[in-house]
């Protein structure tokens, strides 16, 4: 990854120097050589650690609701007979990642394959973070940026899941890198390439259209990076052409109204988190020290910001501001800002002043501390995922897959389930291959995700024997106690009989191990 050509050139030239100078030069070459080797080793170790964190127990816990939906869509695209009835190809988002995932799914649906593909995109983003850091601030910064991103809990956790945000972040970072290349070289071809990648980013997930805003902010705030209007128009046309498959596929291949309905719902839905959600969640996920390092670096150059910092700050500020104001918030929505954070922090940690090696050592030590803090935080999340607590997008659902497999093996085909919320309904459908409705899914089309089917009258459905099982789960109960109680009322009213309890073993505060119920399946009848 490191370029040793400079050192080699110096080795070639030392034969023409006087003996004393030659000796010093030789020592310098050896040191440079060793430093390069150490850097390579460091990068390799960091990459290996990043790889390890992304793959460790990657398949131990089953999918969460969103993963089930995307994998279900991919399976439907792959014409999987078992999942096709429950997961329509067209739901809410574009299908780039699902289309890629559907290719291996033609040979069988596998949780592991889905997660490995997502992790592959995550690893690709690390490489891009290195390239971006190296392009903007030198190889040292590139190495540190890659190390930070590789160990960052935010990126590790999200890119271990079958979510659209990991691939979207990969394409967004590639776009960022291409914009940086354009700004460096001023060659319009890089701008066109950025337009194409921006299109793929949007095909990854439509919310990434915000990168257009970030790009606009960059060109507006960095007048020294001048782009001709013609070149910008060309890039925009390429972007639009790349995005075109999204609406075209909706129109030509199936359900043209799905996207419109989803947009209408997103525009008018109620907030799903407090305004403090991102300030409280994302800095911890990115790593407090990373944020501090990035902020310190920016603070020191606040009066002399170059286009480089402007580009990175635009990449962070536009999505962050937008999602802070947007009522719908999601843990993973700000992931595309993570590489920019990593590069900004790396810029600070790679700081060197000519003739002051101690400062360099201090910066290196700080980088090591940051890396260790990230690795520790990530390891905590990867090694011991919290059971019974669920933040959408933050990980798999413990017990969900096992519950689904029990259903698939023990409940007659054609059974219909009622769950507390749509999340568990998705898992029942994905792993259990049985139709499931969420009792919390409202019938008002303005107040519900159009991808979900409501059950207008569960009482009637149970009385008509159209609905035979209820599933109570600890995750949904914690999020919606009202609907959890409503579900339990149905269980009491309709002769609910517990037919299965899915539990996990937890260690209590006194050190004893105990079984904790995660989900309970009730059989009901009129």
């Amino acid at each position, binding site marked *: 990854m490191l370029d040793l050509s400079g050192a080699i050139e110096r080795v070639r030239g030392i034969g023409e120097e006087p003996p004393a100078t030659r000796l010093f030069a030789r020592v310098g070459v050896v040191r440079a050589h060793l430093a390069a080797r150490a850097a390579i080793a460091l990068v390799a170790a960091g990459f290996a650690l990043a790889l390890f964190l992304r793959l460790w127990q990657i398949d131990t816990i089953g999918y969460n609701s969103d993963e089930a939906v995307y994998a279900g869509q991919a399976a439907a*695209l792959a*014409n999987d007979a078992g999942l*096709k*009835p429950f997961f*329509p*190809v*067209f739901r809410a988002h574009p*299908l*780039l990642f699902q*289309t890629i995932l559907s290719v291996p799914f033609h040979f069988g649906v596998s949780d592991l394959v889905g997660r490995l593909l997502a992790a592959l995109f995550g690893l690709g983003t690390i490489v891009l973070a290195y390239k971006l850091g190296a392009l903007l601030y030198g190889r040292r910064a590139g190495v540190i940026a890659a190390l930070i991103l590789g160990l960052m809990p935010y990126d590790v956790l999200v890119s271990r899941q079958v979510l659209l945000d990991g691939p979207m972040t990969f394409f967004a970072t590639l776009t960022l890198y*291409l914009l940086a*290349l354009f700004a460096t070289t001023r*060659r319009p*071809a*890089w701008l*066109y*390439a950025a*337009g*194409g*990648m921006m*299109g*793929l980013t949007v*095909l990854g997930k439509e919310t990434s259209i915000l990168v257009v805003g970030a790009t606009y902010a960059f060109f507006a705030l960095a007048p020294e990076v001048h782009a001709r209007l013609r070149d910008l128009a060309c890039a925009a046309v*390429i972007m639009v*052409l*790349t*995005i*075109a*498959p999204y609406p*075209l*596929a909706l129109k*030509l*291949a*199936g*359900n043209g109204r799905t996207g419109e309905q989803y947009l209408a719902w997103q525009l008018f839905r109620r907030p799903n988190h407090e305004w403090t959600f991102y300030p409280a969640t994302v800095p911890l996920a990115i790593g407090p020290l990373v944020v501090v390092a990035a902020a310190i670096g920016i603070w020191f150059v606040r009066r002399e910001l170059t286009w480089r910092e402007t580009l990175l700050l635009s990449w962070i500020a536009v999505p962050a501001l937008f999602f802070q104001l947007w009522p719908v918030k999601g843990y993973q929505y700000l992931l595309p800002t993570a590489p920019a954070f990593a590069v900004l922090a790396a810029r600070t940690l790679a700081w060197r002043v000519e003739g002051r090696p101690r400062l360099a050592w201090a910066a290196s030590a700080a980088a090591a501390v940051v890396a260790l803090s990230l690795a520790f935080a990530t390891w905590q999340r990867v090694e011991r995922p919290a059971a019974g607590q669920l933040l959408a997008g933050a990980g798999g659902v413990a017990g969900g897959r096992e519950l689904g497999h029990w259903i698939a093996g023990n*409940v*007659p*085909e*054609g*059974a*219909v389930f009622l769950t507390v919320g749509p999340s568990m309904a998705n898992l029942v459908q994905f792993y259990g291959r049985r*139709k499931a409705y969420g009792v919390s899914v409202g019938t008002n089309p303005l107040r519900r995700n159009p991808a979900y089917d409501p059950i207008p009258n569960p009482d009637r459905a149970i*009385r*008509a*024997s*159209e609905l*035979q099982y209820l599933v109570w789960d600890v995750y949904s109960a914690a999020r919606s106690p009202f609907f959890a109680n409503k579900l339990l009322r149905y269980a009491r009213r309709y*002769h609910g*009989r517990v037919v299965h309890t899915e539990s996990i073993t937890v260690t209590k505060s006194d050190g004893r191990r105990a079984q904790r119920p995660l989900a309970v399946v009730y*059989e009901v*009848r*009129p």
Partner: protein
Amino acid sequence: MTRAAVLVATAVVALAAAAAAAAAAPVPRTPISHFVTLMQEHHSFDNYFGTYPGADGLPPRVCMPLDVARPRGRCVRPFHLGGHAVKSLSSDQRTFLAQLGRGRMNGFLDVYRRQGIDGTIAMGHYDARDLPFYWNVAGEYVLFDRFFAAAPVGTLQNHMYWMTGTPGSRAPDVIPRRGFGRLPTIFDRLDARGISWKVYVQNYDPSVSLRTVARRARPGGRGSRLLRLPLLAFPRYVDDPRLSRHVVGLPEFYDDAARGTLPAVSYIIPAGAGEHPPGSIRSGQSFVRSLVNSLVRSPVWTSSAFLWTYDGWGGWYDHVRPPRGYGFRVPALLVSPYARRGHVDSTTLDSTSILRFIELNWGLDPLAPRDAAARTFMSAFDFGHGPRPARFLAADRATATGPEPRRSVIYALYSSAVVLALSVLAWPLAIRRRRTVLAAGEAERS
């Protein structure tokens, strides 16, 4: 001390007797060791399945004359009832004979015209839109299209044939003054051989029996329960706790099914969900569906069979002339893991065929000449293969998903997007590579 010893001895004897009975209980001759049967009310085969594909349904050009004396006069073709309000058509002996028309099967409307009522509704029929679950059952299991009511008329007579192989009394729907005396029932046969049985009664009221209600039941009155459950008109089934304990409320069926403790033979008696016009056919379907679902998810599913039929045609049109002494055709369906899939069985059957099946399966003696001579529905089973996995059938026939998306279009469009983006990216990369090569060449030359 003596009293305690007697109690212990009695208990030991009772246990020994029970054990002996259990030990003596014959093993069924088929894999069916749990048989469930239900009798709904008042619909003809053509009324429910007249348009069912592959069944002997409504003749294509049939048009029923309003007046049999004027065969070229006004006539009514079968029509879809849908949400039409229906009424209870008379279905007594006179109506039956007039509709039969000495085998011409042309008096279905004329009889009502003569009574001064508009009977055109008798030509109405339901289809998959109205009976989605029943039609789903027919598509997945077995539909019988030659299942005749055992008695031409009478709720009581048909229920009696179902349990005893005899009509019980000569006058339709009249219970003899002293009940049915010592007339043997299928439950006597089962009991004698130590084979478990229960009669599950919806809305069961143990206080209703021969002793407490009038002999001639008023429609809808408490006494009408006896017509559907004539066991309550047998003194021994009312007075002997050893027998009466087998007659239980319907909730027990659900519990027994869930626990896997269903008896070998279960009779189910509906109350409000019997589909008797003008009762809701939808609530009847829901009721039957709840029973089928309970069986489907029961541990005994793999050794079970559930057959339900109807006690009479209810005045509705049916085009098949019944054999002498039988009523018009009625719907009948069989659900079992061994039932042939989507099979229309045309064996001539009636409710005594149910008795015959029980007798053959458990090696019991016939009760009466009718059940001794009855054919069974063994042809509806396929015991050559293992039991089918349990499966709930949908309550509707609408397709769950919309039209299939054109997958090739999706792949083509998204692939073209990737190719476009990569092509645009390849261009500056190629330029950079060319410039690097040129620069290296230049450096070498210099």
